[in-house]
């Protein structure tokens, strides 16, 4: 005989995993598009710097928000993409014919972050630390939710 609650939970978990996969695919597609958008710069180097910097900043903010609300942030894949877009915004301007200027460091240190000692390897490690921090926060939060609220998710 089928264990109904267990079956429903499995179906629900599978649906949630599929939804997450779709979000992951969408996020990967967006990042590939951003990589290909580098006409004005060497994408191999610049994409990595701004992805690591933007995503790291986003992950730190996500960790604070998650900790405060005692629940993971909604749409967790959108935050790093937004961080990346902010960090690389001067490169979008460059592709439109506007050269970089010093003030563009307001976009998450767009110019100076390239000159970090260790270059992209350092930013890779910073990203891993930020990701680890966010995941550690997720691992520590618990919040009881009303059933009605769960139904709305």
């Amino acid at each position, binding site marked *: 005989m089928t264990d109904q609650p267990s079956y429903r939970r499995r179906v629900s978990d599978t649906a949630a995993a599929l939804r997450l996969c779709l979000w992951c695919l969408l996020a990967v597609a967006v990042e590939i598009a951003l990589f290909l958008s580098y*006409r*004005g*710069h*060497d994408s*191999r*180097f610049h994409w*990595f710097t701004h992805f690591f910097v933007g995503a790291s900043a986003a992950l730190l903010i996500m960790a604070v928000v998650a900790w405060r609300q005692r*629940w*993971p942030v909604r749409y967790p894949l959108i935050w790093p993409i937004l961080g990346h877009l902010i960090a690389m915004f*001067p*490169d979008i301007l*460059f592709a439109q*014919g*506007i*050269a*970089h*200027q*010093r003030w563009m460091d307001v976009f998450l240190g767009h*110019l100076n972050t*390239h*000159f970090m000692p260790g*270059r*992209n*390897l350092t930013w*890779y490690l910073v*990203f*891993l630390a930020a*990701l*680890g921090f966010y*995941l*550690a926060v*997720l*691992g520590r*939060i*618990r919040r*009881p*939710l*009303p*059933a009605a609220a*769960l139904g709305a998710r």
Partner: protein
Amino acid sequence: MTITRHPPTGRGLVAVWLVLAVGLGALLLVAGVAEGPLDDADQARQRPGVLDLAPLPTSAVPVTDSVPRSGRPAVVFFTSSERLDGLCAAVRAGELDADVAIVTPAAGPTCGTAAMVADPAGRLAATYQLRQPDGGGPPVGYAVVDAQRRVRYATLDPTTAEHLFEVRTMLAAL
């Protein structure tokens, strides 16, 4: 009634971290391996897109009698004999609003109105602050000189001919 629903924990979180660490680490490694011998060993200095990156600006030494000259910006391309045809075609089609000189290690054919200069010893590239390519040999790239005959931008760029709009962008920023 309340139901306690937990965010993912334990092995799932570690798996997410590991997948991203390995995946992005592998991509970073591939990007490093993909760099060619004519690229700058310090990628931060290749096509940075900003004027006056130290040690610039510096005085531009004459490449010819008329390039560079006061009152008119100039672009000095440094290229190899193998890349000369492609660069020449791009420069002809590119309509740069500047005087143009093309420096090659050996004397080459003419290229429209661009001044052609042979520099076997590579001294000009050094005075224009072009860095040595990762694989050694003569640098391939370009320098942008302003109307006051100062070098404001210099970068290695083995693929200049494919994106000459970038040179126009840097000229417009002077």
